[in-house]
C-alpha cells in the first residue's frame, strides 16, 4: 500500500510540474499553430538562470522569478524573430517543426557549451517532511504542488474572466475575426508568448528543483511527457493540458512503482501514439 501511495505522491509532483509546462506548450500551439519543440530547451535555460542566481548566493526562489523573466523574454524573441517570419512566408507546419528542432539544438547546446558536462544542483534546503494521508512530502514538494495549483487557477481566471484571456481564445479560434473586432492580435500573440515563456521558465526551474541534479539535456525526456499530456487533452486546449498532465503524471509514476522504474515513460509514449492514431484532436478537442 505504501508503495502505491508513495508513487501517488511522486505522481502528484510530476503532474504538478508537467501541468505548468503542458499549459504553456499547448497555449503556444493554440494561439500560433506551432509545435514549439524548443520548449524543453527554454526550460533548460530557465533552470540554469535560476542556478546562476543561486550560485551568486541568492535564494533559488528568487532565481525562479528571474528565470521566469528571462524565459519570457527568450520566448517572445523566439516567436518574433524565428517563427513569425517563417509563418509569414507560408512555410508548412513540417518546416516549422524542423525549425523548432533547430532552435532547440541552438538553445540547449548553447547552454551546454557554457556550462560543460557536469550535472549541477541548487543549493537549497528541502524543508520539513509532512505526512499527509499516507503520503510523505517535503516542504519544497508541497510548495511545488502549490505553485502548480496557483498556476492552473491563474490560467483559468485569465482565460475565462480577463479581457486578455478572452482575446487569446478569440485569436486562437479565428484570428481574422479577432482583428475585425479591433483586437491587435500581434500584441495578443506576443503577450501569449511572454506569459507562456514565463510558465516555461517556471516549469524548468521547478523541474530542476524536483529532480535534484540536472544538466543541459535533462528536460529532453520530459518533453515526451509534455507532448503526451498535450495530445491527450487536445493540442491548444489549456484545460486539456491540465487533464493530460494529471493523467500522465500519475500514470507514469504509478506504473513505475509496479513495473520497473525505467519504463515509466512507456505509458506516456503509448498514450501519445494511441491519441495520434485514434483521436488527434485530444479528449477535449472537437471531433475531427
Amino acid at each position: 500500500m505504501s508503495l502505491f501511495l508513495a508513487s501517488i505522491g511522486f505522481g502528484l509532483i510530476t503532474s504538478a510540474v508537467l501541468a505548468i509546462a503542458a499549459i504553456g506548450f499547448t497555449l503556444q500551439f493554440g494561439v500560433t499553430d506551432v509545435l514549439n519543440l524548443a520548449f524543453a530547451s527554454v526550460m533548460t535555460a530557465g533552470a540554469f538562470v535560476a542556478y546562476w542566481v543561486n550560485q551568486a548566493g541568492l535564494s533559488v526562489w528568487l532565481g525562479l522569478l528571474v528565470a521566469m523573466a528571462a524565459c519570457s523574454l527568450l520566448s517572445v524573441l523566439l516567436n518574433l524573430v524565428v517563427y513569425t517570419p517563417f509563418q509569414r512566408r507560408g512555410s508548412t507546419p513540417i518546416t516549422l517543426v524542423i525549425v523548432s528542432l533547430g532552435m532547440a539544438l541552438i538553445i540547449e547546446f548553447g547552454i551546454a557549451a557554457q556550462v560543460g558536462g557536469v550535472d549541477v544542483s541548487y543549493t537549497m534546503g528541502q524543508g520539513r517532511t509532512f505526512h499527509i494521508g499516507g503520503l510523505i512530502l517535503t516542504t519544497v514538494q508541497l510548495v511545488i504542488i502549490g505553485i502548480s495549483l496557483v498556476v492552473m487557477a491563474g490560467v483559468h481566471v485569465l482565460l475565462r474572466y480577463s479581457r486578455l484571456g478572452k482575446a487569446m481564445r478569440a485569436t486562437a479560434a479565428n484570428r481574422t475575426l479577432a482583428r475585425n473586432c479591433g483586437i491587435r492580435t500581434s500584441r495578443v500573440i506576443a503577450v501569449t508568448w511572454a506569459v507562456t515563456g514565463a510558465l516555461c521558465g517556471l516549469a524548468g526551474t521547478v523541474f530542476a528543483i524536483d529532480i535534484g541534479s540536472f544538466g543541459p539535456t535533462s528536460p529532453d525526456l520530459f518533453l515526451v511527457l509534455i507532448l503526451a499530456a498535450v495530445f491527450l487533452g487536445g493540442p491548444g486546449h489549456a484545460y486539456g493540458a491540465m487533464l493530460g498532465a494529471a493523467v500522465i503524471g500519475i500514470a507514469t509514476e504509478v506504473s513505475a512503482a509496479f513495473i520497473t522504474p525505467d519504463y515509466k515513460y512507456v505509458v506516456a509514449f503509448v498514450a501519445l501514439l494511441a491519441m495520434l492514431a485514434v483521436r488527434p484532436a485530444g479528449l477535449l478537442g472537437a471531433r475531427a
Partner: protein
Amino acid sequence: MYYIINLLVYGAVDAMACLGLSQQFGIAGVTNFGFIIFQAAGAYAAAILSLPPDTANGGFQSYLGGWHLPFPLPWIGAAVAGGLLALPFTFLVGRRLRGDFAAVGLLVTAVLVNLLVTDYRPFLNGDAGLAIVPSPLQGVISPLTTRYQWAYVVLVIALAGGVYWFLRRITESPYGRTLRAMRDNDRVADSIGKNLLSLRTGMLVLGGAIAGLSGGMLVGFINTWSPAAWTYAETIVLFAAVIIGGAGNHRGAVLGAVLVPLAFEEGSRFIPNSQNLPPNLIPSLQWVAIGLLIVAFLWFRPQGLLPERKRVITLPGQAGVRPRGPANVPDGAASVADGAASVPDGAASMPDGAVPAADLRAGAAADQRAAPAADRVAQPAVPQRAAVPQRGAGAGLPARLPAGQDDVLQAVDVSRDFGGVHAVSGVSMSVRRGTLTGLIGPNGAGKSTLLALLAGTDRPSAGKILYQGQDISGLPAFRRARIGLIRTFQLASEFKRLTVLENLLTAAPGNRGDSFRGAVAGRRYWRGDEAAAISRAEAVLGRFGLTDLANSYAGDLSGGQRRLVEIMRALMAEPAVLLLDEPMAGVHPELARRIGTALSGLCAEGMTILMVEHELAIMDEFCDPVVVMAEGSVLAQGTMAELRERTEVVEAYLVG
C-alpha cells in the same frame, strides 16, 4: 591510412542513410523523425545474425541468436529488419493525421525506443550493447589487413552506389512522379485515385530497408553497436544533411552526407585539443552549428545546395514543325512559337496567342503526329474501358460510349438533406450525349451538391443516379472515374513542383510504371505506356494552346492557367462524361472563351460535358441546353436566350 579508410566507410554509410531519408522526405514527403531506429534495427539484426554462439555479450545470446550466419546473410537480414520495422508505423502516416503531428509521433518513438533498449538489458544487452560483432568473411581474411579494409571500402561504396542507382530508377519513373505529386498536394493526389496509404507505407519500408542495410554495413566495420550510437539526435543530423544537400535530389543527399555527418564526426579532429577547453565544448558547439545550419538553410535556401531538377520532357511534336493555323491567328502567336519557356505573370499576354481559332485543327494535327508515335511503340496503351479506336488512343479523344444511350447521365428524383436543410430536393434531370450542358443558378441553389451526387463524392439521401442506363447510386467516386465519369474541383489543385506535363501525366490511367514493381522493372517495361501518355498529354495541351507551358512548373502559372491544368488533367483520364465545377472561376474572359471553344470541340468529338458555371456569357455562347436550379430544385431548361424570357428564372436570380 586507417583514417582515410574510416572516413570512406563512414561516408558510404552516411550517404546510404541520407539517400534513404531523402527518398522518404524529399521525394515522397514523408517526414520520418524516427529514421535512426531503422538503421539501429538493421545493425542489431546484422549483429545478431552474425554472432557466434559463445561471446561475452552478457548471456543474452542464450535466448537469441548465435547462428553465426555467413556474409551476406546478416546484411540481407539487416535490410529486412529495417523494412519490417516500418510496418507498425504506417498508422502514423495514413491520410488523416496532420504532418507535424505524425512527425512528432515518430520523434517520440525514436526517443523512447532508445530509452527502452538502454534500460531493458535482456533485450539487446541494454546500455552495453553488442560487442565483438564479426566482420563479414572474417574467417577467410583477417579484418586487420589493409587489403581487407580496402575491400570493405570498395564494397560499401559499391552498395551505396547501388542504392543510389536503385532510387534513381524508382524516382525517375511514373511511380516516382506519383510520389512527388503526393508530396506536393496529397489531397489532390488522393482525389485522382492515388492510394496514399500504400504509397507512404511503401516509402517507409523502402527507407527503412535502406537504413537497415546502412546499419549492417556500419556494424560490420566497427564491430560493436550500442544505444549511444543511435540517439534520436542522429536523425536530426541526417535531416540537416538532407536539407543542406538538397531534399528531392539524390545527389544532394550524397553531398549532404559528405558535408554534414562526416564533417560532424571528423571536424573535431582538426581542432587542437587544448587543455583549457572544457571537455564538452566542442561537441556542444557542433550541435549549435547544426541547429544554425538547419534554420539558416530553411530560411535562405530551402531547396538546398543541389535543388531538385526539373524533369523536362521533350514532346514528340515539338521537334518538328509547329502547326500554324489559318490567317486569323491573334497576335502573340509568333513570339510563342519561338519556344519561349518563360511564363509571365499577366494572363493577358499568355500563350492565349498560341491558340488560333483552329484549335481543332491543331488538335487534329497533333493527332496525326501522335498516331505514328503510338504505332512505333510495341504495345499502345489501350484503356480497359469502352472500345477506343486505335487512332484516338493517344490523342485525348474521349472513350466512345456504347451506342444507343442518348441520356448518358441521369438524376432520378434525387434528394440530399443536410440535417434538415434540403440542399437538393426531388431533382430529375438528364444529360444528353455529346452536349455541353450548363448548370446555373444563384448561390445555395444546390448546383455543387447535385454535381457531387452525380460524381459520387456525395451520396443522395433519396433517388437514383443512372449512368448509361445503369444505376450507379452506390458507386463511390473513384469507381465512377474508372468507368468514365470524372469531375473536377473548384479549389486550386495543381502539383506545384511538377511541370504542367507531369501534372497531366499523373492522371493518365493504366501506366504500368505507376507502381513500385513497375518502377523497379525499369524504363523498358513502362516506356510504351509512358510514350502513349505523353502523346495524349501533348494532344490535350495542344487543344488548349498550352503546349509551350508543358515544361513549366505548374506552381508558376497564373490563376487561370492553373484552372486549365485541372481540366486537362481530367481529360487525361479519358472521360466519357466530364463534370466541371466552375472551371472559369477567376479566369480572364478571353481565356474563358478559349476554354469554351476547346470544350465544344471535345463535345463535337463525342464527349459529354456538364458544367456548373456563373459566367453566363459562356453559357450563351457554348452551352445548349442550360439547366437552371434554385433552392434545391430544377427550375427550367433551355438555351440562355429562352431562359431569359422566363419569369421564374429571372425571379430566381434576383431573389436569390
